[in-house]
């Protein structure tokens, strides 16, 4: 599937990624600035925070309990479309997904 990250300055990064990996892992593998993933996707750090593009928010679903609590401590402002990208799995249905990387 194809994914696009838009960076705070307006730049974008695009990548073709395999189904099954998380969007955090994909971002780290493609050196997307601002997506760190310190805890490897174990819901312990909130350093893979993204805003899901409005057009995709329904498809990526909502944060579960732990993720929801973690989003409260993320460095950037929380919005209705906030997700931790380690909790979004790449899937053919998400082909074309657009994620916005928050400002520091």
């Amino acid at each position, binding site marked *: 599937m194809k994914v696009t990250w838009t960076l705070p300055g307006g730049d974008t990064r695009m990548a073709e990624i395999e189904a099954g990996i998380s969007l955090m892992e994909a971002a780290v593998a493609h*050196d997307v600035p601002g997506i760190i993933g*310190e*805890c*490897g*996707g*174990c*819901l*312990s*750090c*909130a350093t893979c925070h993204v805003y899901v593009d409005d057009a995709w928010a329904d498809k990526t679903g909502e944060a579960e*309990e*732990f993720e929801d*609590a*973690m989003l*409260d*401590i*993320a*460095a950037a402002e929380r919005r209705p479309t906030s997700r931790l990208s380690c909790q979004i799995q790449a899937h053919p249905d998400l082909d074309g997904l657009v994620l916005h990387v928050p400002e520091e």
Partner: protein
Amino acid sequence: MTVWTPGDDGYADLTSHDAFANGVPHNTFSRLRCEDPLHWTEYADGQDFWSVTRHADIAEMNKNTAVFSSARGIRMEDQSYEEYLARRTFQETDPPEHSQTRMKLMKAFSRTTMAQYEEDIRQICVDILDDVLEKGTFDATKEIARQLPMRMLGRIVGLPDEDLPWLVEKGDALIANTDPDFTTHVLDKLDTDEFRMMPFNSPAGAELYAYAKELMEKKEKAGDTSGILNMILQPAKDGSVITDTEFRNFFCLVVAAGNDTTRYSIAAGIQAMCHQPELLGQMQEGGDIWDTAPDEIIRWATPAIYFRRTATQDHEMHGKTIRAGDKVLYWFASANRDEDVFDDPFRVNLARSPNRHLSFGQGGPHVCLGMWLARLEVRVLFQELAKRISAIEPAGPHRFLRSNFVGGIKELPVTVRMA
């Protein structure tokens, strides 16, 4: 062969604290990464174990908590089940139990909460440096590195300044429990098991516990419900409450672990400045270097040399089988010098980016809770130090802690010239 660690012939006994007394035996780790990345390590004082030394392997295993559990202990030394229960903290738990406890503390240690301490930290740094730099020659571990985390501990936990030296002394006795400079109860030379139910198997654990108890009673009387100690006492989302024993152990963990790790990061950074004089100039130039320098200093230091896990099921790796029940050690100190991940790993490169070091146990749920505080303290300290000096050099040999668990320069004589 390049000699990184004097006295290490490439075959150091990783179970021996003495093998780390000249620093981490990097020649041995370098050989293991290359020849035997999953190394069966014989341990005369307990159950033999697997040593994992490559960055990629540790990163992969660290997130696999279903197979590699923290819930049977995190140190090389074996514990009976009752000792384990008596001494455990949330470090010795797995998700989801671990997540329940951690959630209570997350906010207090988040990046945004920590950022609010920056001015406090800067003021403490200024006080420390104003006091010590004019001496010209001094022990940088004792006079600088030890001071900042100790004073910040007081702010974060809410402890009176006058108690801090005593607390840190006790914390050192706990965590440096294999170095005779820090404790009279040297762990691997003990002939008593009197303290085996105490945190870190140390009598200092009992004293810290008494202190914490008294502190909380005082706070309760005064109606003071602030601070991280009260946070951990709150019921978790599932309604569970921490036991007295767990609270005692948590307090010891905060005093010990939150302190010496940042201290030894700062010490390692100062040692690097002595041996790579170009670093001072780069710091003085400033700018973007401060986005990357703290992590590089913390990679260089790697204060937590290893953490241990226990396999819950058989696991195949590098043509060998890790059996259920086997101890597995993640040697972070080795991963942080892995040539496959770090260009020129034995040099400090303050601009290193990306810097996928594992000093905080990145890649797993136990990633250091205090990492944002650590990074902030390291950045501010070096910013203030670099402003004030024009040169720094060794004033004698530095000495490492006698420990295969905590990597640290315990004595660092330096001479500075003021700017």
